[in-house]
């Protein structure tokens, strides 16, 4: 597919796009857009000056003033003002010089329209779709873990990173995929980087998928283990989803909003009921599940969920999760603005430089940048931006609002998660996020450990831990690693000040846990399915029978392989004597950033082949950054001589202790535990080697493609041929005056076969 067409220089955008003269204009002339942007009225100047001043003031409050405390509202202002400026100016620059969308061209949603997979969708609705598909548990978890380095590094990376890297990646991938009929990242990698690069990208994507699913599942296990309330209420989502699925299948097909509301009410009932049931003796006994059995439960669930038909479990839970996602995030934003919590965390903590933080090991560079992936730069988005969204875009210019704007929105979610995590007491934060290996899993152990860290202003008492646990309706909050419980305590802390008081904290805590678990279970289920299809497709090259995806045995076999792969990593994390999250989370971030590097490498090759070297830096700068971060982090994970950072250093230390006949070493108290560490670090080390090798191959092939393009003065493209468009729609959230005028022409024309477009 995708014949390479070479268009003569100078006439790059001039295939025959003469529009049907019977129609009102399908596109505004680019000069009209430019004239509108260039018209700086005093009001417009005033607004942008105000945004710039407020943003500047907020950054000064965060970065320079650094009093005893800092108010959360400055995070919100700094983020929003920077996003607005980045969107208005930088994404506009990319649009004007690099991508040059042309609304005279029909999008795949128009020229491939089938009313199902390819269907032009209102830009505001599609923004919601796209946001719901990209934002999951990632932006909620990473910033929480990175909070140990202080508030400033994470804040700067999330906000600056999204403007120059994350949103650029999403925008570019979405645009390039749209110009190629909605082709996937894997297909684009093969087209642009050739066989070697394409194959490396495919293997990397598959491995990354496994790691990401495993670590998301680990977050859920850590949040639900030994929590009867959590297990019950999250467990209830399964029967609720099954009920919703049957309702939609047999009773009232298509009544999606109706069943989502019913499902939501049932969900709330499950949370409230969970509290009552966990309070009874039998309930506490029945739903109190340890980590390992819970992990095995999730593995079995993952397998069953991935082979059940979509209508029964995945689709209904997807509706529920979209409903919860948009609602809860809106609610949290509002609550932060109303409550405006004071934050006592220092701007930059000692762990940023010492690298000895108990939450995740390693220094600020590069580990901050892999701990926070989603929210700043997330490679996984490239799979969404080259999946459903490009097939639904109505007009080319809308890619900026949806691709760039959608990612800014996710970044804002990450900022709110950071604020929520920062708003809780720092002593409690470390007690919750230090592994059981350090705290012993007991209140006394946690208090001793946290106070021994010697952090200024931190004086943890046992009462603080028992009281917080009681408030949120849990037996204990010590060593609830993984980020989700910390975020939930933060969210409960903020929400109870808006609604319900401290009596409602337990409800809000479990509401937040449910909210995260719902995303993660959907991601686990969908990720397993996608990975299974990728595996089947690859195996099909050697055993053609696997290509037939309706072949039951093959489907079950490949699903089993994928579940076993992530299940093994999950069990490894759950049983790890060193803690699990702190050793595995860097792998998650590295995997995600590596995928970003792959996506950006593909984009760079596309830009270079088009001969647009003048603007190559737009892609090359974030690519270089992602490459340096992932490669440095991987190298440190492989070669560092510090055992808490380097997997093989840890491996050697434990192997040596075993060889010396010792029966306990560090936090491992038995020979079995020591052997587990040796095994785990070996697996983790090998995974790091695989990742860095694949990354280097992909980036190298992209550089090669770029060099070849430079040498040959290439002006090639794998884009689909241009087809003239027959529809019109505004490009941004709000239509500009010129767009409104054109829209009016469309609205006022006699209704013969016109599409109904709702616009304000």
């Amino acid at each position: 597919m995708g014949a390479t067409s070479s268009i003569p220089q100078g006439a790059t955008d001039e295939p025959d796009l003469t529009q049907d003269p019977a129609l009102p204009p399908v596109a505004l002339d680019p000069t009209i857009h430019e004239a509108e942007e260039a018209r700086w009225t005093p009001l417009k100047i005033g607004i942008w000056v105000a945004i710039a001043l407020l943003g500047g003031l907020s950054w000064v409050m965060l970065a320079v003033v650094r009093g005893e405390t800092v108010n959360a509202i400055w995070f919100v202002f700094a983020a929003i003002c920077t996003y607005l400026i980045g969107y208005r100016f930088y994404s506009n620059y990319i649009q004007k010089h690099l991508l040059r969308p042309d609304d005279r061209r029909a999008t795949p949603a128009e020229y491939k329209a089938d009313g199902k997979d390819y269907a032009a969708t209102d830009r505001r609705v599609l923004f919601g779709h796209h946001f719901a598909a990209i934002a999951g548990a990632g932006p909620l978890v990473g910033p929480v873990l990175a909070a140990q380095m202080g508030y400033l590094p994470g804040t700067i990376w999330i906000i600056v990173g999204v403007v120059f890297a994350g949103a650029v990646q999403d925008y570019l991938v979405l645009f390039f995929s749209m110009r190629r009929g909605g082709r996937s990242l894997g297909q684009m990698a093969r087209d642009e980087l050739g066989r070697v690069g394409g194959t490396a990208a495919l293997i990397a994507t598959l491995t990354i998928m496994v790691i990401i699913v495993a670590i998301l599942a680990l977050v859920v296990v850590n949040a639900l283990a030994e929590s009867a309330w959590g297990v019950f209420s999250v467990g209830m989502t399964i029967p609720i989803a099954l009920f919703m699925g049957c309702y939609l299948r047999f009773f009232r097909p298509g009544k999606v909003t109706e069943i989502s509301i019913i499902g939501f009410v049932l969900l709330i009932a499950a949370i409230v009921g969970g509290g009552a049931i966990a309070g009874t003796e039998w309930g506490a006994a029945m739903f109190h599940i340890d980590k390992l059995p819970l992990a095995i439960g999730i593995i079995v669930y993952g397998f069953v969920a991935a082979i059940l038909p979509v209508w029964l479990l995945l689709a209904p839970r997807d509706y529920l999760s979209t409903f919860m996602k948009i609602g809860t995030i809106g609610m949290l934003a509002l609550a932060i603005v109303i409550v405006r919590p004071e934050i006592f965390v220092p701007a930059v903590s000692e762990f940023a430089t010492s690298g000895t933080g108990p939450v995740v090991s390693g220094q600020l560079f590069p580990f901050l940048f892999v701990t926070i992936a989603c929210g700043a730069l997330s490679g996984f988005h490239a799979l969404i931006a080259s999946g459903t969204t490009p097939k639904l875009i109505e007009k080319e210019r809308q890619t900026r609002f949806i691709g760039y704007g959608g990612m800014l929105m996710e970044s804002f979610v990450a900022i709110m998660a950071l604020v929520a995590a920062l708003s809780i007491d720092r002593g409690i934060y470390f007690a919750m996020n230090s592994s059981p290996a350090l705290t012993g899993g007991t209140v006394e152990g946690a208090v001793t450990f946290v106070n021994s860290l010697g952090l200024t202003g931190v004086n943890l008492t046992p009462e603080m831990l028992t009281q917080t646990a009681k408030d949120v309706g849990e037996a204990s909050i010590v060593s609830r690693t993984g980020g989700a419980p910390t975020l939930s305590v933060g969210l409960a802390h903020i929400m109870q000040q808006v609604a319900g008081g401290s009596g409602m904290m337990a409800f809000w805590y479990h509401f937040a846990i449910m909210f995260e678990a719902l995303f993660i279970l959907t991601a686990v289920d969908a990720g397993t399915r996608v990975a299974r299809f990728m595996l089947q497709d690859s195996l099909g090259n050697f055993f053609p029978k696997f290509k037939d995806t309706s072949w039951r045995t093959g489907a079950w076999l490949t699903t089993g392989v994928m579940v076993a792969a992530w299940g093994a990593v999950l069990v490894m994390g759950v049983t790890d004597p060193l803690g699990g999250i702190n050793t595995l989370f860097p792998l998650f971030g590295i995997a995600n950033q590596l995928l970003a590097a792959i996506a950006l490498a593909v984009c760079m090759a596309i830009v270079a082949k088009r001969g647009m070297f003048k603007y190559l830096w737009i892609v090359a700068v974030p690519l270089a950054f992602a490459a340096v971060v992932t490669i440095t982090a991987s190298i440190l994970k492989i070669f560092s001589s510090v055992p808490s950072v380097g997997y093989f250093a840890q491996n050697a230390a434990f192997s040596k202790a075993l060889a010396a006949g010792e029966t306990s070493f560090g936090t491992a108290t038995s020979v079995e535990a020591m052997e587990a560490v040796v095994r785990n670090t070996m697996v983790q080390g090998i995974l790091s080697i695989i990742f860095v090798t694949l990354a280097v191959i992909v980036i190298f092939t992209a550089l090669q493609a770029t060099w070849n393009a430079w040498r040959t003065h290439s002006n090639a493209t794998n884009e689909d041929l241009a087809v003239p468009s027959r529809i019109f729609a505004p490009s941004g959230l709000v239509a500009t005056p010129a767009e409104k005028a054109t829209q009016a022409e469309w609205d006022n024309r006699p209704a013969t076969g016109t599409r109904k477009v709702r616009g304000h």
Partner: protein
Amino acid sequence: MGVVTAVRSAAAGLAWYVKGVLGEDAYDKYRAHHESVHGADTAVPCMTAREFWRDQTDRQDVNPQGRCC
């Protein structure tokens, strides 16, 4: 515009948006597309709502879409 009208139009806008984001309008879009392409041509029958929703989840079965982390 009176307050009642304003509230009503805001509520209608919200309902339209929620339905759009959740995907409830998928069948309407399919039917509109079908009519504009095939019109009254009965050779290509338009799916009923029930058939359409079944077809939709069946298509998702063979073409899974990842959810993000």
